């Protein structure tokens, strides 16, 4: 049996080993940032029942990625423009049109996604880069990508902090917030634009198909465990950031797809949260008796 000092060293080796590669260092930073950002904005997404929007904007952004590829532009430019246009379009159709929110999302995102698939199908060669945006490839995050991720994340984080109270009030009671002088229309559109930017930031890490899970699941897990907003927000961030980093570790040792491993881990935590919430309720009923 190895001595305690050796065992300790092995544990440290397990934690440190992935960091010997530069691409893993970048991947860990990206995972931490994306996990934190998605779970922060995801709190409002869950409370405003906008889960479908995240999925919609992510799928729509695929058209932007393909258009950028065809034009020889940076993927992020195309994805950002289409994601923001889709987000604002969904908001506009919902506020001004006679269709419900889920219908507006359904129409716009499937249309934009179909455009992306159509353009991709006309490409003469099969392209792996575009595939990686569907399922994410956090290990492929370059220095330039990471700088952009950090810049966009900083913009989103500062904007969310600036709008914190307006977002909270309009999420709870938009009519009374509006009457008190908070411009709920502006806040709604700002949230959609920030959501679009968050999705763009997350595309390379977890991919179009899985980004909605990182937006919704940490906040949904936290929602089951607390009845205070600030606690929900903190728990959601803790769950999102931890799962992203731990999922990346797991994917490294299991040699599995990183985006899928992160999402599977956060889904497991959701069910664990459900169990904990059920136990909490049972204990509360027992105490009342």
């Amino acid at each position, binding site marked *: 049996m190895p001595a305690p000092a050796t065992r300790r060293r092995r544990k440290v080796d397990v934690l440190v080993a992935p960091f010997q590669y530069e691409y893993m260092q970048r991947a860990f930073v990206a995972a931490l940032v994306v996990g934190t950002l998605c779970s922060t904005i995801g709190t409002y997404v869950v*409370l405003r029942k906008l889960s479908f929007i995240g999925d919609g904007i992510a799928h729509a952004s695929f058209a932007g990625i393909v258009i950028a590829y065809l034009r020889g532009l940076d993927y992020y430019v195309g994805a950002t423009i289409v994601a923001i246009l889709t987000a604002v379009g969904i908001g506009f159709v919902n506020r001004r049109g006679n269709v419900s929110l889920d219908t507006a999302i359904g129409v716009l995102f499937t249309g934009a996604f179909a455009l992306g698939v159509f353009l991709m199908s006309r490409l003469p060669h099969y392209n792996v880069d575009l595939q990686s945006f569907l399922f994410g490839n956090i290990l492929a995050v370059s220095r330039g990508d990471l700088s952009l991720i950090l810049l966009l994340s900083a913009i989103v984080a500062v904007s969310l*902090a*600036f*709008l*914190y*109270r*307006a977002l*909270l*009030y309009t*999420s*709870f*009671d938009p*009519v*009374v*917030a*509006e*009457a*008190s*002088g*908070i411009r709920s229309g502006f806040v709604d559109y700002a949230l959609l634009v920030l959501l679009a930017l968050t999705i763009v930031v997350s595309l390379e890490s977890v991919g179009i198909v899985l980004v909605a899970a990182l937006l919704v699941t940490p906040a949904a897990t936290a*929602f089951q465990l*607390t*009845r*205070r*907003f600030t*606690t*929900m927000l903190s728990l959601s961030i803790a769950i999102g950031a931890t799962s992203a980093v731990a999922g990346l570790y797991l994917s490294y040792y299991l040699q599995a797809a990183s985006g899928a491993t992160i999402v599977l881990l956060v889904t497991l935590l959701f069910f664990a949260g459900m169990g904990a919430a059920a136990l909490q309720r049972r204990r509360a009923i027992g105490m009342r008796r």
Partner: protein
Amino acid sequence: MRIRDLSVRYERVTALDGVDLTLESGMALGIVGPNGSGKSTLLKTVAGLVKPARGSLEVFGEPPRSLRPGTIAYVPQIEAVDWSFPANVYDVVAMGRFPRMHAFARFSKRDRHVVDAALDALRLGDLRGRHISQLSGGQQQRAFVARAIAQEPKLLLLDEPTTGVDAATEEALRELVRGLVAGGLPVMMTTHDLDRAEDWFDRLVVVDRRVLAEGDPKTVLSSGAYAGIREHSHVHGHARAGDPAAP
């Protein structure tokens, strides 16, 4: 507040037509009328939630939407909030401070003091830690009135705040409103309770899409307009079908 020739339409239905009204500081203005008469629409228009089709509306010399945040506090008749929202009574009342706070400002000692005072005024001190879904209808209504008070508004709009509250709470609410009015706050409130109108209001307006009568409560209550409305209310006890202004 000054309203001149105000008309509000919901698509093809006229909710208010040619309304003239004035509200001075330190005055409680009661608005009565049958269901679907446009009482709630009038409050929503003053709150800046509904755009007038015609006429002018000025609050402190400006259109409602041009006012500084926090100037108007509005308590709707029915709160369409998600009752599972993670917030307790204190959190809800504290939201009343939000319109007046700068983006990165911390909740100050004064903010906490104002929220505590609003909770005490509405007898909610013991319920401050309770989740909003665990309140009775009357307690929920009190929490929303407390939030409006915590806002320290310059104009208070209350849409039937006594609906579903017990007699003791109604009296506490009346005393609170009278206290605020005595302090100079203008209050505009809709009600169905015509019998206590004299205790609540300095002026009373009878509305049925138009202003049918206006004056001190005693005069209005003894006028034909009041009798007509009362008869109307008894005959049409509920909202008229197809009326979008109906609650």
